[in-house]
C-alpha cells in the first residue's frame, strides 16, 4: 500500500503506445483511468481491465495491470465471470458504444440487473471506428456520414443511462473526454461503489465525427447531488440532453453474489461421490 500510493498516473501506463488517432477522446479516458488508479493507490497486480473489440477496447494493453482483450461485445461477460470467480480483484470492463449497446446489448442490460461489483466504462463516440465509421446504436438519426446509411440511420438512438436505469443499474454517471480529471474522480467513485457501476463517457471521435468537437460547448457539469430515487432518475434520463456530466444516480443495493459463508471446500468432494453409491 505504502509503495502503491506513491505511484503516479503515468506509472500505471504500460510500454505499449496507443494506436488511436491524435485527438481521440479515448486518450483522455486512458488518462482518467490511470489517474483514478493513482488516486486510489490501486495495486496493479490485483487489477484487471477487460474489454471487447473496437477502438476503445484496445485500452487494457495500454495500462500496466492484468488485462483481457476479448471478442466483440463480450467484455462484460468475461469481467463478471472473473469477478465472481475472484472477488478479491478490482475488475473494470471497457468498451465502445457498438460493443456495449449493439452486439453486447444483452450483456449490458443483464450486467445492470445482476449487479456484480465491477465498473463498466462505456466510451461512447456514436460510431464504429475500427470498421470505418458506421452508425452505432447511439448515433443521431440524421447522421449521414456513413456509406452504409447514406441518409442517416433513421432510427432513434439509445439513451444509455435510461437503458441502464431500466435494467436495474444502481450507479450511473456520465463523463466527458474533455474533462479527464472529473472522469478520474468518477472512476475512483465507481471502483469504490460496492456494486455494478456504469460510467457513460462521451468520448469524441475526431476522425469520423469531427462535429463532436462541439460537445465542449454543450457539455455541462451537473451541480445537484446524485439522485437516489429511480423515479427521479427516470425523469432526468428521459428528458435531459445526454450531455450532463457527473454522478447522476446512485442507490445502495446488495451486489451479487451475496457474500456467503465459506463452504466446506474440497473435502466435500468425497461426499458428492458417495451420494451416488448404493
Amino acid at each position, binding site marked *: 500500500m505504502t509503495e502503491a500510493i506513491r505511484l503516479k498516473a503515468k506509472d500505471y501506463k504500460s510500454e*505499449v503506445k496507443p494506436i488511436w488517432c491524435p485527438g481521440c477522446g479515448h486518450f483522455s479516458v486512458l488518462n482518467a483511468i490511470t489517474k483514478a488508479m493513482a488516486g486510489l493507490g490501486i495495486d*496493479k*497486480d*490485483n*487489477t*484487471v*481491465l*477487460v474489454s471487447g473489440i473496437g477502438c476503445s477496447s*484496445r485500452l*487494457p*494493453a495500454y495500462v*500496466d*495491470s*492484468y*488485462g*483481457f*482483450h*476479448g*471478442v466483440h*461485445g*463480450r467484455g462484460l*461477460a*468475461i*469481467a*463478471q*465471470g*472473473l*469477478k*465472481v*470467480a*475472484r472477488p*478479491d*480483484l478490482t475488475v473494470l470492463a471497457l468498451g465502445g458504444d457498438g460493443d456495449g449497446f449493439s452486439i453486447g446489448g*444483452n*450483456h449490458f442490460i*443483464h450486467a445492470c440487473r445482476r449487479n456484480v461489483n465491477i465498473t463498466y466504462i462505456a466510451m461512447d463516440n456514436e460510431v464504429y471506428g475500427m470498421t470505418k465509421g458506421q452508425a452505432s446504436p447511439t448515433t443521431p438519426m440524421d447522421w449521414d456520414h456513413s456509406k452504409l446509411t447514406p441518409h442517416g440511420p433513421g432510427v432513434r438512438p439509445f439513451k444509455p443511462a435510461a437503458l441502464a436505469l431500466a435494467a436495474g443499474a444502481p450507479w450511473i454517471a456520465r463523463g466527458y473526454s474533455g474533462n479527464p480529471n472529473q472522469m478520474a474522480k468518477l472512476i475512483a467513485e465507481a471502483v469504490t461503489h460496492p456494486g455494478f457501476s456504469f460510467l457513460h463517457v462521451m468520448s469524441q471521435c475526431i476522425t469520423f465525427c469531427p462535429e463532436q468537437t462541439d460537445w465542449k460547448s454543450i457539455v455541462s457539469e451537473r451541480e445537484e447531488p446524485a439522485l437516489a430515487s429511480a423515479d427521479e432518475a427516470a425523469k432526468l434520463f428521459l428528458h435531459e440532453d445526454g450531455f450532463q456530466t457527473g454522478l447522476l444516480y446512485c442507490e445502495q443495493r446488495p451486489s451479487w*453474489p451475496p457474500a456467503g459463508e*465459506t*463452504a*466446506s*471446500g*474440497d473435502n*466435500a*468432494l468425497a*461426499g*458428492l*461421490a458417495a451420494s*451416488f*453409491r*448404493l
Partner: protein
Amino acid sequence: MSKRQLSIAITGAGGAGVISCGELLLQAWARQGGRGLLRKAYGPQIRGGESAALLKLTDDECYTAASHYDLVVALDWDNFARFEDEIRLGPQSWVLCDEAEALPASILAARPGIVHLPFAELASACHPEGRVNMLALGVLGGLLGLPCAGMVELAARKLARKPREYREAAAACIEQGAARRLARELQVPPTAATGACYMSGNQAAGLGALEAGIRFVAAYPITPASDVLEWMAGGLEQLGGQLLQAEDELAAINMAIGAAFGGVPAFTATSGPGLALMTESIGLAVASETPVTILNVMRGGPSTGIPTKSEQSDLNIALNGLHGDAPHLVLAPLDIADCVFTTGWAVQLAQRLQTAAIVLSDQFIGQSTAIVSEPRRCPPLAAGSAPAADGEYLRYKLTSSGVSTLAAPGDAGQRFTADGLEHNEKGTPSSRQSDHQRQLAKRQDKLTGFAFGDDWARISGNGPLALVCFGSSSAAVSEAADLLAQGGTPARVVSLRLLAPLQTDALDAALQGCTSVVVVEQNHSAQLYHYLKGQMDFPQAVHSYAMAGPVPLAPESIARAVTEVLKP
C-alpha cells in the same frame, strides 16, 4: 457368450408417474446387486402428455438401448404411437395393461401375450390416494423377486416431501401390487452383488468435472444439458465454488473464460444450438490460451432439431466449428460411468495445455440413469516441466512444448493482457507473419506434441474386421461385435475417446492386422467416417455405417449392416 438381459417398457400419461416407477424399480433392483439402465422418453408437453420409462436389466454394464422389450407395461395406451419406433416387441414379449381392448395396431401385430390388470381400479381400491405407478412398481418388483419392504422404503424416501397420506397410499399400492400373482413370469437375469453407483451420464460428467478441479460454472439452460448444470450448482455450493446463470450461451462461455483467466478452473455445459453460439469465443479461449471445458450433450439437429433425443451429429462443429486455425481438444465419453473419467481428463488436459476442451456426450448417456460399478477416475496428469523463468515474463513465450507459463491476476510482476488478436510472445497485438506463424505453430504443437497415453481409445476384441466408433456408440458397437463373432466374424472394436488431436499413429497401430474397417456412428452424414478419412491414409478398406437418431443405434442393425458391407 450370450448375455442375459431383460427389458421392460413402462408407458403412461404424463402425471401417472411412470418415470418414478422406473427409477424406483431400478434402485430396488440395484440393491439386490443388479445392473441396469433406465432411459426416459417424453412427449413435447412439459406436464401431462405421455412418457415412457425404458428399463434394461443386464448381467453386465454394456448398456445399449433395448432393441425389443420383453414386457410392456401400459398404464394407458393414449398416444402410444409416439413411442412406436422405440418400443418394439420380440417373439416372446408380453404386455401388461389395463385396457386390453385398446391395444394399438403396432402392438397387436407382434402377437404378444396379453395380461390384463385393472391398475386404476386396484389402486383406488387399496387407498383413496392410490396411484397406478406404485401399483405397477409392486407388480414388477414381485415379478423380479425384489423385497417389498425395500421398494416401500425407497418410495418413502423419494416422496419424503409429500404428505403422509400420500406415502401411505404408495406403500399400500406397492404391497398390493407385489402380492399379485400373474399368469406369466419373467426370465430374471442374475445379479452381480458388488458395490455400485446409481447415476446419469450428466451427473457423472458433473462429478468428473468437480473432481478434476472445476470451481466455476457458467450456465444457460438447454435440453438435454440443464441437469448437468443443476447438479453442479448443488455440488459447487458444497465445494465453495461459484455458479453463474448467464443471459445466453455467448455470455456463459465468456464468463467461464473470465473465471479461467482468474486462475479458477471453469466449465460450461450446453447442447448443439448453444455450442453454435459459443464457437466464436471458444476460438478466443484457443487464441488467448485460456483453459476452459465445454460439455456438449448432443441432441438431434440442426437448428432446434429434436431436443429430447440423442444423436452424434455435433462432431463436425466440435472439430471444425471454430474459425481460423484453432487447434483444441475434443473428447467423447464412451458410456455413463466413463463420463466421470473423460470429463475429468478433459478438464485436466484443458488446464495443462491451456486451451479449450469440448466434451461430446449425448442425450442417451447424459439423461439415462444406470447402475454402474465405481467409475474409473482420471489420475492427476504428471506435472509438466515448467519453462525456465528467465528475464521478462512473456505470457506467450515460445517453448519446446508449446506451453508457456500462465500467470493469474494477483501474481506479482507477471502482468499481461490476454488477447484474441494475434499477438507476439509478450501478448502485444501483431499482424506480422512471423508472429502469426509462430503462435499458430505453438498452439498446434502443444497439442500434437503431448503424450496422451493409452486412454485415447478403448480397444477390445480381435479379428480381421475393425469397428471404429466414438462416444456413446461404444456399447452398441461392442454388442454388435459380439453378435458378429457369434456369426463367425470376430471383430476388433476401437472406441475413440480422444477425437482431437486424433492419435493417428496409435489408431493405425490399433488397426494392424485388420483388413477392413467399418466406421459406425449415429448421424446422417457419416461425420466420423469423413473425419478419419481426411486425417489418415488407411491401408484397409474403410466403410461407413451412419444412422441418424432419434432411435438409438441397435447392435443387431449394426451387425446386419456390417455383414452386408463385407459381402464380397
